[in-house]
């Protein structure tokens, strides 16, 4: 076994056609080890997603094999902390897919407006960019005061970022454009203050937001809500886990509650397809039926 040499490229990695069977074994053992030691279950994540992240971590850690990495994951808590960040999904943006937000304003907001009190679950909220996006829309539609948002993620450090609502100023050009394209009524800059290359979002946007640790893989229903918002999380799961999590959403939704998924995600071919009607096919907005078919 080679030792200690730093890798510049994936290509320098120890794995090739001849030993890729060992890689599969090591991957399975690693995921099992993480589950046994730390209680996080990644075994039904997309295997390609995991492999890319794990090989990336190998590369930048100067390790050669996943067995070596497993050793560090089990014995070195700090290393595990870093590694956990690798496995969580932390790419997000404000008003991502503006057309979705436009349809949300047009088709969902008018119905939510008729409720005396609104409960929303944003599952897999990551660093919170879409939490603030949603809060801004609710604010502009005069609904924020009677809305409770539960923003959850299994990764505690992204939740900390979400709570603070501080983001890189460089991103604001894109976010402003997205906001505008999504039917925003003001300027995005009205909602934040800038300082030293960062922006701080208005605290009042998050006054009705509870940021909480919740793991979609292992945790259950915690509230009945009128809207589940979970975009670009399911694509990181395999079909089995996707189906299970969609079941969790279905159970968490009040009758006629809304489900918003990522643009490339779908209820189609899951066990729960028949319990929902399609509000917007392109933008993956669904509504739970009053009478359940199962």
């Amino acid at each position, binding site marked *: 076994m080679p030792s200690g040499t730093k890798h510049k*490229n*994936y290509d320098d990695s120890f794995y090739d056609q001849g030993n*890729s069977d060992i890689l599969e074994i090591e991957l399975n053992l690693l995921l099992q080890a993480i589950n046994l030691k730390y209680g996080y279950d990644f075994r039904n994540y997309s295997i*390609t997603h995991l*492999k890319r992240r794990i090989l990336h971590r190998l590369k930048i850690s100067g390790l050669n094999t996943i067995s070596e990495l497993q050793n560090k994951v089990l014995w070195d808590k700090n290393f595990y902390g870093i590694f956990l960040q690798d496995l969580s999904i932390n790419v997000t943006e404000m008003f991502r897919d503006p057309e979705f937000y436009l349809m949300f304003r047009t088709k969902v907001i008018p119905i939510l407006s008729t409720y005396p009190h609104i409960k929303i679950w944003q599952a897999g909220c990551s660093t919170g960019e879409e939490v603030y996006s949603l809060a801004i829309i609710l604010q502009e539609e005069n609904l924020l005061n009677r809305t409770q948002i539960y923003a959850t993620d299994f990764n505690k450090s992204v939740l900390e970022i979400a709570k603070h609502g501080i983001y890189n100023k460089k991103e604001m050009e894109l976010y402003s454009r997205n906001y505008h394209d999504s039917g925003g009524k003001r300027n995005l800059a009205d909602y934040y203050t800038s300082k030293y290359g960062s922006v701080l979002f208005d605290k009042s946007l998050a006054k009705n937001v509870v940021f909480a640790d919740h793991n979609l893989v292992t945790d259950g229903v915690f509230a009945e809500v009128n809207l589940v918002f979970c975009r670009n999380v399911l694509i990181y799961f395999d079909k089995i886990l996707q189906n299970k999590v969609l079941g969790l959403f279905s159970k968490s939704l009040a009758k006629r509650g809304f489900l918003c998924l990522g643009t490339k995600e779908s209820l189609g071919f899951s066990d729960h397809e028949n319990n929902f009607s399609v509000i917007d096919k392109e933008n993956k907005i669904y509504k739970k039926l009053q009478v359940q078919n199962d």
Partner: protein
Amino acid sequence: MIKAVVIGASYGGLEAIGKILIQLPPKFDIPIIIVLHIGHNTINSYLTSLNNKSGFTVKEAEEKEIIEEKTVYFAPPNYHLQVEDEFSLSLSTDEKVNFSRPAIDVLFETAAWTFKNKLIGVLLTGSNSDGAEGIKIIKKYGGKTIVQNPKTALGKTMPDSAIKLSVPGFIVDLEDIAEKILELTMEN
């Protein structure tokens, strides 16, 4: 026995890919999976025209979609396209790679892991160096690699970078790439 063909292209890629798909005979039944750097506004009309002109079903890849014969899959704009396993594709919104999403390297690498020596990787025209690493990895896993002769490419940087990074199996004029693919899949 080749199980899949992956193709990557950027600047100049619309024409180059079109040329190859039209030259391949409709009986060619190996799935073709493509990353082309192309905008939201152009992709639909482009795929429709390829659907009409080529002998294949040409479509945007969907999340966890089953890989079928005689079908050409394109990465949706703003998503990485990955080979999930031998039977299905997956999408990801992960960080950009080589300033690109979709990135050719992501498709090529994940295809190499799955199909190993049963894969053909084709890198075409483009004005960045995405795909060079991918070609190297496909080679490493025993797959066959074709890089467009930079002299016949609108964007020379992409094929040049791949040739600089590793020695591709074949460097071929655009005109002859379809024929080379057919030749490499003869044993199928």
